[in-house]
């Protein structure tokens, strides 16, 4: 009996311990706020709310934005800003916010998901049961906000991590994008996108280890088409030599530039895909030119003394770059020197065995690109909206 009693007691203790462990694990999962049951990512550290965010956003919504931001690796303040521009965080009593659809008969809930496009509608595609109550309710912020995060994550992936382009996907208006970004900056200082595997896709390009270092590449001998967001003024995407693709994408993001010409026929130094023409994404003022295109030119070793040459060795360019056409070079430059018949742009040519090719040609035997870093193939990095 004594042995049995001891054994029964041990069993009770073991059962109690197991039950306690289950409860602890459940509580831990709940505290994490991880949206188990749909494909989530780890959003890493995100900035805390500003005083304005604490003041203006209802506590229930603020918690939902931050939880969804972490779960889907999108900036929570972007979700909050969208919620503000859409429905003032669900506080409006307008049609379609708490019931029914909006005046245009399409959209509903605090994040204004489209219920009628498709099938499947945007809500059907991206709606998730954020609070795990067994229903996906477009009017419930605990469902609608993680659903918006799910949608924005996809938009970011499709836009190759470009935040402006992703927000534009949510509502096709540059004014809307600017309004959202202004409010997001008011809600938290840092608007950054953790472009890990789930936010930006597997080929999220990272920056070079050091643009003053270079590597001679003989493969792949191929072209790769630039993303739509990287082209200026709605131009059709053009290819570049695949070996400089990540360099180009890094430049576009780091210096907030867009491409006006890449590989194209009959364009001097553009036929082999190792030359690009760039303009600022925000090409309004000379100050913007100086801060974007001008800064890149300087970082590549260009200086005003290079003006009419633009090529190494007279111009002390970094090893991967063969030619920089900017202020002072005929037909190139910022509005400071380029106006009238001169289309303002910055030209960059990488060093290759085919430098100067004007007609369309096959990928060159060798190209010199920036030295790659371990970061180039790393799965995660941060891109900051500029």
């Amino acid at each position, binding site marked *: 009996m004594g042995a049995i009693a001891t054994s029964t007691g041990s069993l009770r203790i073991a059962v109690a311990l197991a039950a306690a462990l289950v409860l602890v694990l459940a509580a831990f999962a709940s505290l994490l706020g991880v949206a188990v049951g749909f494909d989530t990512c780890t959003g890493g550290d995100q900035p805390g709310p500003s005083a304005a965010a604490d003041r203006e956003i209802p506590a229930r919504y603020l918690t939902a934005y931050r939880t969804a931001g972490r779960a889907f690796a999108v900036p929570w303040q972007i979700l909050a800003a969208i919620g*503000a*521009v*859409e*429905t*003032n965080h669900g506080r*409006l009593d*307008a*049609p*379609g*916010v708490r019931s029914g659809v*909006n*005046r*245009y008969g*399409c*959209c509903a809930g605090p994040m*204004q998901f489209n219920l009628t496009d498709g099938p499947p509608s945007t809500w059907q595609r991206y709606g998730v049961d954020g609070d795990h109550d067994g229903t996906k309710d477009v009017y419930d912020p605990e469902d609608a906000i993680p659903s918006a995060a799910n949608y924005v994550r996809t938009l970011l992936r499709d836009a190759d991590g470009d935040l*402006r382009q992703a927000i534009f996907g949510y*509502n*096709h*208006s*540059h*004014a*809307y994008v*600017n*309004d959202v*970004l*202004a*409010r997001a*900056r*008011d809600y938290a200082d840092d608007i950054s996108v953790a472009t890990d595997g789930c936010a930006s896709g597997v080929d999220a390009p990272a920056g070079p280890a050091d643009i003053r270092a270079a590597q001679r590449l003989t493969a792949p001998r191929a072209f790769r088409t630039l993303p739509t967001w990287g082209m200026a*003024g709605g131009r059709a995407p053009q290819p570049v030599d695949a070996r400089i693709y990540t360099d180009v994408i890094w430049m576009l993001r780091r210096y907030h530039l867009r491409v006006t010409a890449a590989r194209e026929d009959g364009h001097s130094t553009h036929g082999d895909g190792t030359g690009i023409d760039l303009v600022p*994404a*925000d*090409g*309004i*003022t000379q100050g913007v030119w100086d801060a974007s295109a001008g800064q890149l030119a300087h970082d590549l070793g260009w200086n005003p003394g290079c003006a009419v040459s633009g090529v190494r060795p007279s111009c002390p360019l970094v090893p991967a770059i063969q030619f920089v056409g900017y202020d002072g070079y005929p037909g190139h430059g910022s*509005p400071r020197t380029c*106006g*009238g018949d001169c289309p303002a742009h910055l030209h960059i040519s990488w060093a290759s065995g085919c430098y100067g090719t004007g007609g369309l040609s096959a990928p060159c035997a060798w190209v010199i690109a920036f030295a790659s870093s371990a970061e180039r193939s790393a799965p995660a990095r941060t891109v900051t909206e500029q």
Partner: protein
Amino acid sequence: MVAPSQLVAARASARRFGVQYAGYLAGRLTAREIEDAAAELVRELRRYPPRVTPAQQRHMPTVRRVTVEPTAATVLAVATLQTAEAPSFQISFVLERRGSRWLVTRLLDT
């Protein structure tokens, strides 16, 4: 370069456009009713209309400031808009001279 005398007219057109575009964003004007928009911009706005949100319908932004900068043949303008107590934001656009008028021909992705 656009002459300073013409810049005054372009600035006035830019301000009118800013006010009318704010009304468009709030769903109170149609694209065709934006008088200072060129035909190609009206066509683009009608083809790709933005979705007017309930919050935009409720609170129409107001134009706080308009700056213009001349280029060779066009004028670049930036209008600063603000909605109620929210932070201000900007819209950028290009004006071109059409006959005796300056009209907005395109909105910029900035």
